[in-house]
């Protein structure tokens, strides 16, 4: 069974089209491009309540993304949630008294961690620990507080 020239060209085109589609899928339609293997260093931070934070949530400083949440765990000794942040090596200028807060993008959007650099001269290194943290706002707690304020008058 010999294949004709046109068939071969068409099959070649078919396969090329497949690879092109895969490329578009990776670059345009998913986060493949942000998988680049940049070197990171890890710092830990404890939160009272992480709300809806998830692994791979963004870590930002002044709105600029500098890393991602690597893992979330519960620390049984501190009785708090332990969040490990993977920060890109290029952003190594966080003083040891940096504060981490959990915010929500938009009213119902996804949650992310915002870092606010402190004033110390010593910088955070691999394995460092952020001491000041501000938990996620839980809508139910807020509503509860408002109700208490309204009824206690």
């Amino acid at each position: 069974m010999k294949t004709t020239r046109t068939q071969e060209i068409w099959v070649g085109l078919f396969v090329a089209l497949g690879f092109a589609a895969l490329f578009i899928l990776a670059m345009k339609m998913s986060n493949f491009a942000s998988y680049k293997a940049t070197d990171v260093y890890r710092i830990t931070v404890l939160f009272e309540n992480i709300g809806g934070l998830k692994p791979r949530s963004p870590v930002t400083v002044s709105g600029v993304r500098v890393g991602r949440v690597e893992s979330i765990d519960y620390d049984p000794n501190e009785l708090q949630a332990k969040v490990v942040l993977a920060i890109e090596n290029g952003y190594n200028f966080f003083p040891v008294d940096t504060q981490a807060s959990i915010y929500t993008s938009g009213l119902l959007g996804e949650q992310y961690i915002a870092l606010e650099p402190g004033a110390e001269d010593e910088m955070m290194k691999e394995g460092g620990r952020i001491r000041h943290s501000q938990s996620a706002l839980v809508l139910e707690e807020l509503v509860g507080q408002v109700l208490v304020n309204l009824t206690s008058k």
Partner: protein
Amino acid sequence: MLDVLANLGGWWLGIFKRLGRGFIFLLQTLAGLPGLFLRPGLVIKQLYSVGVLSLMIILVSGWFVGMVLGLQFFITLSRFGAESALSVTVDLTLLRELGPVVSALLFAGRAGSALTAEIGLMKTTEQLSGMEMMAVDPVHRVIAPRFLAGIISMPVLAVLFSVVGVFSAYFVGVGLLGVDSGSFWSQMQSSVDWREDAVNGIIKSVVFGFVVTWIAVFEGYDALPTSEGVGRATTRTVVHGSLAVLSLDFILTSMMFGEI
């Protein structure tokens, strides 16, 4: 009374017999795959008739499915003022479910039925036994290249379906309904995970390609060598292939996207 029981038993025995034959046939086919490296021409020819000729139906349906998704999600999402989530919703729907499933259903209808009819007719006209006479194993020569071509084509077609679908949703959402173009792509890139969503969808389509092509070539090879038998086998390919795709999709989805 005993007749009913006997018929019931016979029916079940028949099912198991077919299942067993199908499985042995699959093993024989798989054993024939390595020999194809020596004759890539056979596979290219089948890639043409299975893959390239299915392109049209896949691309056109992908385009329209994407447009419908874009329109429907826009109508629902704009009620909550969440039009910016349009791209993510469409992309996830296509990558995880509709891309692999709909293209597999179309593939079963377009390419699977053609494979069954072709092989069944070869059997009816005794071309297959003719090959055996010439000491050529028809499973290696006829079945294996078609099987391999089906497995290769299916993921390519499914990925094309998803990509075309997203672009048509872009056309509807951004072009006609006024969603912001920049947020369309950036929302998608920030919320759709390559490994979790895209790769799982591709794995699904490989599994579907395997199952649909297996059913198609087996039905053809197992068809009664009459014109009626070939007709029935073709119908069975489409029915069983579609049912297999839909039920497997549930199992795969619960394995991939269930509790992580």
